[in-house]
């Protein structure tokens, strides 16, 4: 099966990076999280309840909805924090990409380790801009808020296509599909990675890929 890949692009100011990323990642995870599964006899299960809460952004005129799960929020914030730090350490260029990948684990026989097969990848490309004065920042607040609104509509549109979703697993397989480590919600197995593009507009991975391709082509 092919992995579905969606790309979102945003241009934000430095201090808006955290909130913009949180807004989009949480919106995606809202749709990709269920309540905790409680398996009963005979292969049936019941699903817990997912609560939601509104989060106002401080630096953007935007409010987003996320699942009410402190653990999940902490995990996402940690990843976004690392991304932000990498962005700011990279230099004045300020371009990067954070990816949220949903995958399934496929058990392999020994000695091979488990495979992680992604079935949906969301890539958020970030372009950090620097603004000169307060007036520009105020305009940026509103503009980025509108942009994020458009991105949420894009996300919802992709979700509503109801394309491939992993089958609901049996009790033994649930950890191959869902992240069961959280105590109140159960998102699909996900991982967040990021890459920072250097000033030439290329990233390390694309350079490597090009090198390997060139080598193989010879």
């Amino acid at each position, binding site marked *: 099966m092919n992995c579905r890949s969606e790309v979102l692009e945003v241009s934000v100011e430095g201090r808006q990076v955290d909130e913009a990323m949180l807004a989009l990642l949480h*919106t995606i995870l*809202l*749709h990709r999280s*269920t*309540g*905790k599964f*409680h398996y009963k006899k005979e292969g049936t299960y*019941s*699903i*817990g*309840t*997912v*609560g*939601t*809460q*509104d*989060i*106002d952004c*401080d630096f953007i*005129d935007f*409010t*987003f*909805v996320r*699942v*009410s*799960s402190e653990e999940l929020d902490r995990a996402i914030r940690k990843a976004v924090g690392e991304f932000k730090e990498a962005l700011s350490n990279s230099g004045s260029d300020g371009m990067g990409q954070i990816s949220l990948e949903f995958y399934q684990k496929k058990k392999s026989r020994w000695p091979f380790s488990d495979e992680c097969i992604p079935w949906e990848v969301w890539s958020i490309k970030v372009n950090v801009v620097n603004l000169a004065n307060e007036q520009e920042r*105020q305009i940026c*607040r*509103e503009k980025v808020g509108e942009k994020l*609104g458009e991105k*949420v*509509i894009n*996300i*919802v*549109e992709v*979700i*509503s296509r*109801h394309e491939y979703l992993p089958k*609901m697993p049996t009790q033994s397989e649930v950890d191959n599909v869902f992240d069961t480590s959280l*105590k*109140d*919600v159960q998102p699909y197995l996900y991982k967040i990675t990021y890459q920072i593009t250097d000033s030439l507009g290329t990233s390390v991975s694309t350079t490597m890929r090009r090198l390997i391709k060139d080598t193989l082509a010879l």
Partner: protein
Amino acid sequence: MDNDLSPQDKKDLDKFIKFFALKTVQVIVQARLGEKICSSSSSSPTGSDWFNLAIKDIPEVTHEAKKALAGQLPGIGRSMCVEISLKTSEGDSMELETWCLEMNEKCDKDIKVSYTVYNRLSLLLKSLLAITRVTPAYKLSRKQGHDYVILYRIYFGEVQLAGLGEGFQTVRVGLVGTPTGTITLSCAYRTNLAFMSTRQFERTGPIMGIIIDHFVERPFPNTGHMHACDYRATGEEDGVGYPGVEDSQEVCTTSFSTSPPTQLCSSRLSYQPPMPGAADLCYPAALNSTNPHQMVLPGKEGGVPLMPPQPCHGTQAEHGRVSSCPPADPGHHLSGSPSTGEDAETLSRSGEAKTACRPEALETTFTRKVGAFVNKPSTQVTTTGLDLPFAAFAPRALNSEENDPMVHPPESPTTASPLHGSLHSQDSVDSAGQTQDDFVMVDFVRILLFHLQRSPYILSLCVLCLFTSPSIMELQTSYSTVKILLFFLLQKPAFSKDDLLPMDLGTFYREFQNPPQLSSLSIDVSAQSMAEDLDSLPEKLAIYEKNIDEFDAFVDTLQ
């Protein structure tokens, strides 16, 4: 067709659609209440949370939705719509958006009702949660309160989008295929909101003390079944509290943010743990902390309380005190955080102390002096005790006031400069008239010189000021003042007790303030002297012609 669907599936599907419709309405109305919605996750299933989502049920809303559905279900040609509109305190109303839950004929026969449809409906509700925070009406609803309220109306049947104005946009929330049709959820929203909302706010100011029954009346016949998007959070869970079947509107009792849309900054802050006065002062406080000099006000009031109370010893000491003014203040006042209003004020004060020291120093000196030179003998005696630079001089001058032609010159000098004029206005008691002006002028001169030593530009400015005076008398005064300025520029520091000045500054100043009239400019009443002058001219010319060679030689030496 329905034949393919098992009765149980059909029953389940109908139930799903019914509760989905009710939950949709709840999500939409709750998103327009004007406050943040929060519900908690629960890992153990309670069995009453439809679609595995914790969506609270507001009884009034459920009641209205059931009334609108009247036992029917959304189906093909029968859409359920939630209309959100805005109503100002003046009674104007405007439709903002219409959410439509529709069904079309496209069936998905193979789908599993109890499982896939249910989960997809759950997903659709989550999408609805996200989209309701994105449309323009959300921001408006968060700011409802004094100026306007947000109302909702549920109707069933044909979708009516005419009230949304031209150019309305549509956003599709999602769709779920079922064996009996495809459920679609979409929102059509008005786009020219920004203009309308600004217009509303410009027209209506904040209404104080809104009367509860203001909203009870039904002003518009076509807005039947309009309800205010508000919710009393306490004690109405049981469904007891909601009003009966009549369409009365409820008043906003929950606390909404009432800041106008331009103050986006402050309205955001109002949702954080409140600081006293922070919402109003956040913006100026931010300005102060980043750039204190921007808030500098021309210095009327900053300086006075900052001056130390001890009297000065001599003019040099006074200069010393003035110079100590700037460093003392920042240390004194900038220690506080700029977040509170009081400190914002002191920040701006100290800012002005830093950058506007000159007018401030002038100000303080003169406010101090005013009392010292009130024309009362008792006060004058006490001035000597104050050890002011003029203290020894003051009684002497005043004693001989009647005889001193300098004190009572023939004509009182008009204001020589704008600054001089404003300083005069500071004198609270002007009974001494000239005397006060003298001392005021001297002080002015001294302070000017103090700063002239630091900046040569002031000199050129003063000279310009002084010489823009139109009248001749002013010119003479200006001339004398400039002479004094020049004199003291060459002598540093000015007016210390050990100065080489042969006479006191005051005497010197007064002497030169009213110099005798230039003979050529004196207006002599008798025309005879004029005639004599004219007659003497030829003689003078003859003398000059005689000495012309000498003059030429002199000119040659100059070249």
